[in-house]
Structure formats: structure tokens, C-alpha cells
């Protein structure tokens, strides 16, 4: 039982991060029908830029409080990612908006590898230790379950961000413009929506979420690395599909569900397969779920879109 609860907590934490990344995927997919493969790598860029900022601050102002440092590093990482997201959309994806669907997809894969390569050039291939600004020492165990302050921060932080995003999309004028553009570009443009601007903003908002997720992910595991974004990116895409792509609530639900499945899967796979498979197979759960969802319920848990968008 204690193991069960502990895996539940771990799953929720990872799931919240997936959910944040999945939101970026699902918004871009909803509005353009494009799998932005490079989105996962924005997570990595966010973590790397934050890391660089923290290291700089530690050198420049050694006595700074961890909270200020975290805020400042986010304040650097988020705009960098937003700018990167905007640049990608403006330079590569916008020109391919009317091209055959294979073209933007291949460009997106190229973009992902380009970002990884640039990160490799800037920060090398090694794993970097990510400073633990929020404590990772467990709090007083409740019912035998250890929860760390960083885990609480991640879950609460991502819940707040998601709530803010829902308000933005459902209540504001910008959100209405986004939904209109997702429904139909041309009609939205006729109604006076600047669709180019809205699409760019969608990329920028997604990139900001990715940056935050990157900092959370890296602080949770305590390491950062040029290739750290690709896998979580794919998993977040899986989460988006699982929830129903194009659906914000679905992305959140999908993220949490995927996090839980992975966490329980890693915890119990050894028992289930009589020791044949072990937790090093953790990464296959996302792909199996993806396959199963696409085969049996292509619309996802909450979605309405069809899978035959090719």
C-alpha cells in the first residue's frame, strides 16, 4: 500500500510536467495540425538557460535567496524560449503552412535535431547537475509516503499555470481568437482575426509553458542534458493524443494519466512479468499507450477529432 501511494505521488509529479508540455503540443496541433517535434526540445532549452542563469547568479551574488534565484532564472529562460518558439514559427513553419503535410513534419523533426545540436555545441554532451533551489529533503511522511517540497511546488505550480491558461483561452478575447483560428483559419481571418499573429502567439505561449516545464523537470531529477527534452516531448505528445488532441483539458488529463501509468508500470512491471522485464523498460509504456489509443480510440479520452488527418 505504501509503495502504491508513493508511486501515486511520483506519477502525479511527473504527470503534471507532461501535462504542461502536452498543452503546448495540443495548442499547436489544434491550430495548425502540426506535430511540433521541436517542442520537447524547448523544454530542454528552458532547463539549460535556467541552469546557465543560476550558475551565473551563484557566481555574481552568492548570498541570494533560492526563491529570488529561481524567479530570476525563470525570468530569463521563459523569454528565451518564447523568442525561440516565435523564430521557429516565423522562419520555418509559416512558409510551409500550405505545403503538403509531410513538409512541415519533416521540418519539425529537423528543427528538433537542430536545437539539440546547438545545445550540444553550447553546453557539451555531459550531464549537468541542476541546482536544487527548492529542497528535495522529504517532509514528514504522511501514511508512510514521502513528499518533497519540490514535488509539492511542481504539482501546485503546474495546476496554477493550467488554470490560468484555461481562463486565458475561455474568457479572454485572445482566447476566443485562438479558438476561432483553430476552427477555421480563413473564416477567422474574414472575421477580422489576425491569424498570423494568433498562430505566432500560440507558439509563444506553448514555448513559455515548455520553459517552465523544463525547469520543473530538471529540478525534479537534478540533472540537465542536451537530449533531455526529446523523450518527455514524445511522452507529452502521447499525453496530448491520449487526452484528445486539440483539447486543453484532455492534454492535462492525458499528462496525469500517462505519468501515473508510467510510475505504476515502472513500479510493478517486475512483478507482472515475473522478473523478466524491469524498470529499465519504463519508456515503452508511453509508446504502447500511444499505439493502443490510436488503434482503439483515436479521438482520445476527451477529444472529438478524427485520426485520419493526413
Amino acid at each position, binding site marked *: 500500500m505504501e509503495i502504491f501511494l508513493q508511486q501515486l505521488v511520483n506519477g502525479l509529479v511527473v504527470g503534471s510536467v507532461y501535462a504542461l508540455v502536452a498543452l503546448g503540443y495540443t495548442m499547436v496541433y489544434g491550430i495548425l*495540425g*502540426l*506535430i511540433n517535434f521541436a517542442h520537447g526540445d524547448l523544454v530542454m532549452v528552458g532547463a539549460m538557460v535556467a541552469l546557465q542563469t543560476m550558475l551565473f547568479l551563484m557566481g555574481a551574488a552568492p548570498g541570494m535567496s533560492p526563491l529570488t534565484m529561481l524567479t530570476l532564472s525563470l525570468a530569463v529562460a521563459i523569454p528565451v524560449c518564447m523568442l525561440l518558439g516565435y523564430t521557429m514559427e516565423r522562419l*520555418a513553419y509559416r*512558409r*510551409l503552412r500550405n*505545403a*503538403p*503535410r*509531410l*513538409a*512541415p*513534419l*519533416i*521540418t519539425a*523533426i*529537423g*528543427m*528538433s*535535431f*537542430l536545437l*539539440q*545540436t546547438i545545445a*550540444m*555545441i553550447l553546453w557539451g554532451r555531459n550531464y549537468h547537475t541542476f541546482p536544487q533551489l527548492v529542497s528535495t529533503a522529504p517532509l514528514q511522511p504522511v501514511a508512510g509516503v514521502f513528499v518533497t517540497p519540490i514535488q509539492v511546488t511542481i504539482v501546485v505550480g503546474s495546476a496554477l499555470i493550467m488554470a490560468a491558461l484555461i481562463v486565458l483561452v475561455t474568457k479572454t478575447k485572445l482566447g476566443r481568437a485562438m479558438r476561432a483560428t483553430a476552427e477555421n483559419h480563413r473564416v477567422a481571418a474574414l472575421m477580422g482575426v489576425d491569424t498570423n499573429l494568433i498562430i505566432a502567439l500560440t507558439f509563444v505561449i506553448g514555448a513559455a509553458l515548455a520553459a517552465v516545464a523544463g525547469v520543473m523537470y530538471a529540478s525534479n531529477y537534478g540533472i540537465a542534458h542536451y537530449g533531455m527534452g*526529446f523523450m518527455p516531448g*514524445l511522452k507529452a*505528445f502521447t499525453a496530448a*493524443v491520449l487526452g484528445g488532441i486539440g483539447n486543453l483539458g484532455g492534454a492535462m488529463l492525458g499528462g496525469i494519466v500517462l505519468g501515473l501509468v508510467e510510475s505504476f508500470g515502472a513500479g510493478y512491471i517486475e512483478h507482472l512479468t515475473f*522478473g*523478466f*522485464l*524491469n524498470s*529499465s*523498460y519504463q*519508456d*515503452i509504456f*508511453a*509508446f*504502447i499507450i*500511444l*499505439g493502443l489509443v*490510436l*488503434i482503439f480510440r*483515436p479521438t482520445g479520452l476527451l477529444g472529438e477529432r478524427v*485520426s*485520419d*488527418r*493526413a
Partner: protein
Amino acid sequence: MNELASAVPWLGRRNPQAARWLIVIVALAAPLVAVLFGRTWVRVLDFALLYVMLALGLNLVVGFAGLLDLGYIAFYAVGAYTAAFLASPHFGVHLPFWIVLPVAAGCAALAGIMLGFPVLRLRGDYLAIVTLGFGEIVRIFLNNLNYPVNITNGPQGINALDPLVLFGWDLSRNIPVTENLSINSLFLYYYFFLACVAGSIVFIQRLQVSRVGRAWAAMRDDELAAKAIGINTRNLKLLAFSLGATFGGVAGGLFGAFQGFVSPESFSLMESIAVLTMVVFGGMGNVAGAIVGALILSALPEILRHLALPVQQALFGTVLLDPEVLRMLLLSLAMILMMLLKPAGLIPAHARYSHVEHLKRHGVAR
């Protein structure tokens, strides 16, 4: 061959016959020229031919049938590991090459069908990401199947694969000609791979104008219309996956025997992407494109490696970009820029099998 010949700049249009001979001469003479710069370059050419085979196979899936497969390297891995299981000290099995290669190809084809069945309904982006997942699952299994029963030997990989032996003739041994001159085994492998590639090209070009090839083209261009005129898209998709996988499996078997060593590292996602880039860069749906793309993108990183390192040493005093980074940079830029500037690739595909005179030449139409 016609397609390839007409892709030769300048000469191809004016004198296809001469262009054809030029290609044959270049292909035969390439290692002799390469060896002037050092033996490593022959090795580079050997690997380039393996990439050509992979690109031809992937082109079958992506270019002809229009199914975007991002896990193609999994079939290469299946082929290579099958060869490793059947001809290495790992299990103590040493079957002859003529059994190993067909079994490797067969296993890969089976893997292709296994992937094909569940994803029959998917197209485009979803297919791409599911195939990517398939490739990753295969790699994760190769990496971890050393416990509790050691099957793949895990991350260390399998060593000491048997070399290629054709009719009792060991390709990994140099052939002595005179006292201090011998034909290096790299040459023998080159010409053997060249023969395999030539065979593949003939097969694929015949396939392209066959009923199956034309049905694939129809399916790629409009699946619904293809179904409506009675094309069995399900079987065609499975056939595309399994035939493409067969090429991957053959290339994998050759790779294992040539390198004598297989490990999960050779079958990363990066390699799938690299082969896809070759196909896209050369021109999808086009045999000549796949070949040219594979040759350029597998040789260029090596050339860069030999040029860029000394240049960087001279300019900055240290090496800022190591060869692997340069390769990734090159591949990612090739993908992005090609899609933006020349989406049809270096050698755009013509749907030439739709012209009656072309079909006549192949004896398909009367």
C-alpha cells in the same frame, strides 16, 4: 538505371547512353580513387553503399507508398541482430552466410508486418510517431534483453560476428597478388555491396512500374480514390512495410557481417532520421534521388570530418565542433533547408510510369 542516368548533370539529357556508362565506370572505379586518399575512404564508401540500400528500402515505404516511417532503423537492427544470433560465438551458432542473410531478411519482413498490422488505419503524422515509438521499443529491448536471460548482451552488443563467406571465399581476408601487394578486403566488400545495390535497383525499378508500384502511387496520391477503384490498400500497405523492411534486414545482415560487431548504439533514432533525411534530401519517390541523397549525406560528414578538424585547429587552436556534432548539424540543416527551399528534393520524382511510352518500354502497356 534510366532514372539514374538522366540525373547525371549535363550529360544525362544529351546522351543517356554515355551517362549510363559514366555511372558504371564511376561506381567501379570509386574505391580505386578513394584508396589514394587512404584506406578509411574505402570504408566510408562501403558504409555509403549500406546507406544506399537503407535509403532505397525506406524510399519504397515513404516515397512509393506514402507511409512516413520514423522507425525504419528497427528493421536494420532486426537484420543485424538476427545475423549476430545465427553467426557468432554469442550462442555458438555459425550458420553459412547464404542461410543467415535470407533469415535476417525474413525476420525483418516479419517485423515489418508486425508493425504494419496495428497501424493500418493510421496515416501521416500519427503513423510517423507510432513508427518512431516502434523503433524506440525495439532499441529499448535490444538494450535490456540481457537479464534475466542473456539474449542480446545488452548495451555491450555482440562481438565477433562471422565475416561474409561466399562459396568458401572469405571476404574479410585480403587476397595476396604478389609478395607485397594484395587486394584489401574492403574492396571485396565494396564490390559485393555494389552488386547487392545494383540488384536492389533493378528490382525496385521493375517494382515501380509494376501493378503493385502503380497501385502504391495511386494509394499515396489519394487513398480514398484508390480504394474506390478496387485497390486493396490494406494488403498494399502491409506489402510496402514488409518489402521496405526486407531491404532494411538485408542491409542490417550485411552491416553485421561487415563490421563484425552489433550494439544498440548503431540503431538509435538519429539513424532513422538520418536515413529519412537522405530520402527527403535526394527526392522522395525516386530511386535516383534516394541513391544520390544517401551517397551525399553519408560521405559529406566524413569529408567534413577530415576538412573541418584541421581547419578548426588552424583557426581557433582547438576543435570547437567535433565530427558527430557536425554530422547532426548537417542532417538537421539539410532537412529544414531542403523542405523550405526545394521540397521535392535534389532530384524531383517524375511520375513517369504514367506516361504510356515509358510503360511500353517496360512491356507493361501495349
